[in-house]
């Protein structure tokens, strides 16, 4: 009987250790993704292409600023376009073992997305988690940051127009500072 108890305890310990190392790996992945995105701190510019094409922004020159704030606990992303009134900010931060972003949208709502890094470590992809505020005018739904090299990265933003019609915007960015 005693060996049976010892065996059960051993199984519980093994399971607990496996779970702990699993959680550690997840946390480490989120931190790794966050650190990767922090390497993008600086000023960037590049042209945007849209699918389906949106004449109001197609081909426009976009400026992106990324900077770490809050003692390195948050990364602020800001995007503006030539001749455009839009000026959305996006905050990226760790939340427990997840990397999240909150997008303060020009449409007045605040979607949150959760980030995962690709196997090659070059891309951080954000999937929709939830949204606060009205989605009457649509909402940002998906984002992908791909690091090409120290002075070149791309961003892919998917906006859901009313009726859940996706508009995909791709921005090819070169570092200016």
């Amino acid at each position, binding site marked *: 009987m005693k060996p049976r108890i010892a065996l059960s305890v051993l199984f519980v310990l093994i399971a607990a250790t496996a779970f702990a190392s699993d959680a550690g790996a997840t946390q480490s992945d989120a931190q790794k993704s966050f650190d990767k995105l922090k390497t993008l701190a600086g000023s960037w510019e590049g042209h945007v292409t849209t699918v389906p094409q949106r004449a109001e922004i197609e081909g426009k020159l976009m400026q992106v600023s990324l900077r770490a704030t*809050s*003692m390195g*606990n948050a990364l602020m992303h*800001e995007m503006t376009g030539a001749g455009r009134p*839009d*000026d959305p900010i996006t905050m990226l931060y*760790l939340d*427990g073992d997840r990397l999240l972003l909150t997008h303060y949208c*020009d449409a007045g709502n605040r979607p949150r997305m959760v980030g995962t890094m690709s196997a090659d470590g070059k891309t951080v992809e954000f999937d929709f988690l939830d949204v606060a505020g009205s989605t009457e005018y649509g909402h940002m739904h998906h984002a992908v940051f791909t690091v090409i090299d120290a002075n070149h990265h791309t961003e892919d933003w998917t906006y859901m127009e009313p009726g859940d019609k996706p508009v995909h915007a791709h921005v090819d960015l070169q570092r200016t500072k």
Partner: protein
Amino acid sequence: MKSLRFMLSLVLLSLSTVALAQSDAQKSFDKLKTLVGSWEGTFEGTPIHVTIRVTSTGNAIMHEMTGAERPDDDENHPLTVFYLEGDRLLLTHYCDMGNRPRMVAKMTPDGKTVEFDFLDMANYSNAQGSHMDHACLPRST
């Protein structure tokens, strides 16, 4: 008939209360927008620099506070975002400690100050030891 009248009064009262609450939040938000700019001051005797600006096509206000001697691009400063959520004016404080308290605004009876009370908080752990809990912003006149 009496119950119908009572119901109607109740509905009208509810509607006017909602309208008033929404209007107060919007009014406070608009007033905070008048603080846009760069500010100098002291905090516990230490010089500080505050920048307030409107973003997201007017849907958010960003507040940043740094020590006066630190460069603007220094990462060692908290950032706070103010925004309307339904009939409430909220703020999310991206704290140097790594947590993110949210607070909800109410205007003081004299209408001169927008006061933010603690609502909830994300990413807090006991190891952090403390968190931002309350904020007051004077309304410009």
